[in-house]
């Protein structure tokens, strides 16, 4: 893989020049600034639209809201411009747009009193905190490779964070929250990033041992099992984390960690066998959970028969309501503020926020949104392809995988493609921990993409 990014202008190398200078690199910061400004404008427009549709007037604080979002986005941009000048110019604008649009949606859902207390102000505070952390990470982290050094500290912290909710009461059947002083945080969200860092660091350090040592099973061309000494620690930590989540009934996040681990193992070793093993294990796990855990069993039943409760005379369940909402949206949607998200009830602002997107913006809006996520993921993968160090590659792929899996699992869940699993739509859903975590993920991707696109120092390092 050449270090030259596709964004570089076509080389116009003079023929027969022996020592030519590296071609001038476009940093594309102007593109990022204008796209970010557009993202802010779209968000403010959406905010005004909600007010116009529901109250007949632009909300009085639209200007202030827009100015605040613009200021935060500008600070983020300036941080990128100062410390990561070669970073991918699409990452920040997409994150700003998703977060801004998420705020619009939550503001819109706040208009339905039956959906609980207002959440937009809190979400705004968390978004501010998230962007601040983004700025801090971009400013403070010079080189992503530093993270690999702290991976054991990080994973210890992650496990501690994930274990903490056990000591707090369950909310809606899942013990995944810590509530204190009026705030509730979901430590599992932060653990996502820490685990991705740990997996990336450990696997990149032990790649060769994982891929080429140990016993071979299933014949001479079959899967090579690494020695327990190499696979042991990572397997232990992964099992511990998944076990903790199962204990806390956070099946969505355990599924996410499982997928993340399998993907990274595959990318690190290049062995397709790991994917097969992963799929077999996850299928076995899914069947076991579906059979043993009543909570999961009912989700599977809902998935197979979303309208069963109507036939039983109990009225439409939440998934049926979600499907009604999507159906009502049809191709173009009802328009912001003109759907009926209150019918979906509980979790409308979190797990089911996409149903409102589908109802009010239609198939067109939903596809546009999915395209944004796809672009964000693709840019993460692309940073992984372009960066030279194995740790950076695995980190970028891991972070992009976290985003992609979450989007797939939650979108597939609320549209009845797969059984519903509680998970937060990145940037969109109500939830402070999630927003903050996603901003950190984007900051790390910015950092990795910056080093991926940075011109190689003289003399160039050898490509992996």
């Amino acid at each position, binding site marked *: 893989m050449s270090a030259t990014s596709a964004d570089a202008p076509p080389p116009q190398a003079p023929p027969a020049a022996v020592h030519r200078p590296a071609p001038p690199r476009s940093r594309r910061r102007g593109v990022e600034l204008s796209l970010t400004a557009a993202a802010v404008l779209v968000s403010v427009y959406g905010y005004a639209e909600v007010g116009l549709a529901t109250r007949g007037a632009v909300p009085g604080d639209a200007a202030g809201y827009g100015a605040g979002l613009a200021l935060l986005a500008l600070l983020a941009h300036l941080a990128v411009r100062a410390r990561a000048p070669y970073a991918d110019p699409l990452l920040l604008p997409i994150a700003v747009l998703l977060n801004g649009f998420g705020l619009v949606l939550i503001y819109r859902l706040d208009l339905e009193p039956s959906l609980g207390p207002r959440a937009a102000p809190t979400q705004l505070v968390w978004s501010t905190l998230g962007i601040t952390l983004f700025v801090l990470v971009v400013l403070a982290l010079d080189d992503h490779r530093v993270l690999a050094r702290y991976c054991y500290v990080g994973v210890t912290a992650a496990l501690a964070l994930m274990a903490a909710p056990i000591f707090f009461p369950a909310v809606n059947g899942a013990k995944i929250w810590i509530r204190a002083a009026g705030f509730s945080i979901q430590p599992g969200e932060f653990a996502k990033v820490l685990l991705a860092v740990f997996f990336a660091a450990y696997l990149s350090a032990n790649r060769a041992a994982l891929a080429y040592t140990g016993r071979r099973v299933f014949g001479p061309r079959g899967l090579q099992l690494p020695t327990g000494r190499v696979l042991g620690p990572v397997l232990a930590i992964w099992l511990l984390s998944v076990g903790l989540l199962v204990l806390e009934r956070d099946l969505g996040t355990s599924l996410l960690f499982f997928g993340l681990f399998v993907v990274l193992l595959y*990318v690190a070793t290049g062995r397709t066998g790991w994917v097969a093993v992963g799929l077999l294990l996850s299928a076995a796990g899914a069947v076991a959970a579906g059979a043993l855990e009543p909570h999961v069993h009912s989700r599977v039943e809902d998935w197979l028969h979303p309208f069963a409760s109507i036939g039983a005379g109990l009225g439409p369940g939440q998934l049926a309501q979600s499907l009604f909402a999507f*159906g009502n949206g049809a191709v173009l949607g009802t328009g912001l503020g003109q759907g009926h998200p209150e*019918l979906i009830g509980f979790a409308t602002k979190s797990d089911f926020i996409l149903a409102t997107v589908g109802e009010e913006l239609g198939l067109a809006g939903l596809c546009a949104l999915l395209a944004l996520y796809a672009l964000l993921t693709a840019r993460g993968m692309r940073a992984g392809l372009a960066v030279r160090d194995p740790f950076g590659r695995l980190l970028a792929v891991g972070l992009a995988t976290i985003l992609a899996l979450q989007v797939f699992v939650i979108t597939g869940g609320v549209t009845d493609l797969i059984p519903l699993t509680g998970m937060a739509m990145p940037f969109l859903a109500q939830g402070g921990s999630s927003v903050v975590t996603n901003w950190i993920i984007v900051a790390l991707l910015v950092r990795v993409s910056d080093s991926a696109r940075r011109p190689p120092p003289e003399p160039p390092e050898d490509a992996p």
Partner: protein
Amino acid sequence: MTRCIRRCAALGLALLLALALNAVRVMVLDAGAAAADPANRRIAIARYQHPRGGILVGAAKVTGSQDTGGQLAYARTYRDGPLYAPVTGFASQTYGTSLLEGTEDGLLAGTSPRLASVPLWKEITRNRQRPGDVHTTIDAAAQKAAYAGLAGRRGAVAAIDPATGRILALVSSPSYDPALLAGTGPGVTAEWQRLNDDPAQPMLDRAIRQTYPPGSTFKVVTAAAALESGTVTDLLAPTDSPDPYQLPGTTVSLTNEGRGCDDASVYDAFRISCNTVFAKLGADVGLTAMVRQAQAFGFNDTRLRIPPGVAKSNIDTAMGPDQVALSSIGQFDTTATPLQMAMVAAAVGNGGELMTPYLVDRVTNHAGAVVARTGPVRLHRAVSEGTAERLQQLMEAVVSDGTGTNAAIPGAVVGGKTGTAQHGFGNKGTPYAWFISYARPPGADRAAVAVAVVVEDAEAARADISGGGTAAPIAKAVMRSVLAAPPRAFGG
């Protein structure tokens, strides 16, 4: 490593495509089914988001809408609810719609494509059309007269304009106020429960949805069959019928309430309502001709819509001679709705021509422009002109000099027929009092109004129940109110 990352990215793309295809399934292919699912509350919300169109009697709306401030914004209100309930039905946010509120729902709710000025534009803008209004054929004075005449007793009245088929009155008693069912909540549920549990069945539209044994009023049909088939040619000739009359092939003897039926002429037998004469007459006419005649008046028709569906009035098509004899005096399995019997009287009063009864004169859009209009449509020629004239002689004799003198209106020609239908095991049930009639203004050659009245009064002493005593005065009041009104411009 590069290859693996690319494959991961490709997998991501595949997952995205799966999501998009599934979204198309849910949001486009299955959207219609979701929108039609009765459990989808959006239908109700959209339906009640705007005031509903009005149902009009004459120039006045008998319905309205009231903002409830709830999720289902506008609830229905009714003016004179119990009076017009057999016409309007109810539009309930909890229990759906009935009668005109049901059959004209698309128009009243604004969903009917008939309201769209530009086809497909609504599909693009997704704006809701403004609802239209339904103008009924009901005559307020006739409706009120009928309702007042029943005075809360169980029964029903149907009145028709014989020349056009316009339904002038449709009353069922006891009635209920549809406003009680309009909204949502425990109050509405409790009212629904109470109305359904009430043994008096106030929500039953007796005028079109309940059938009764027609008793002696069915003798009009029997006389028509006898004349049309040629079994009787001279109304005044003796009929060679004994009193009592033994039903053919049985040992059962039929008697009469009154005297003078032995070998009476059809004229006299009709005037004083002889069971023996008409039972024998029916048996002589025979099953085929009897059934054909009854069907020509509208019996056995399951497709009649006014537009609310009308219950089928029945005459069996396979009967023994004794059963034909009983059917010919409105007993055995013969049953009829009050509307059906009004149609019989209307056909006689209209020279044998039976017009299709209808309840909706026209529907208009929000701007008052006519979207659709119902015109007079011939349903059948029930009897020939000549037969109709002779049936008129019979029916007019009932009022001038027979069992129906209580229906006489000075200055108008009135023809009628009384009936006292016995029913129940061994005829122990309280009999139903029937009266069917038509009235013709002086000088006119066709009747201006035809009425059927049935009173099923469980409270009254049995002896007091008779078509002439109980039902005829109600019919008279209804006919008078129609005759007293200035002639209406057609379609006005």
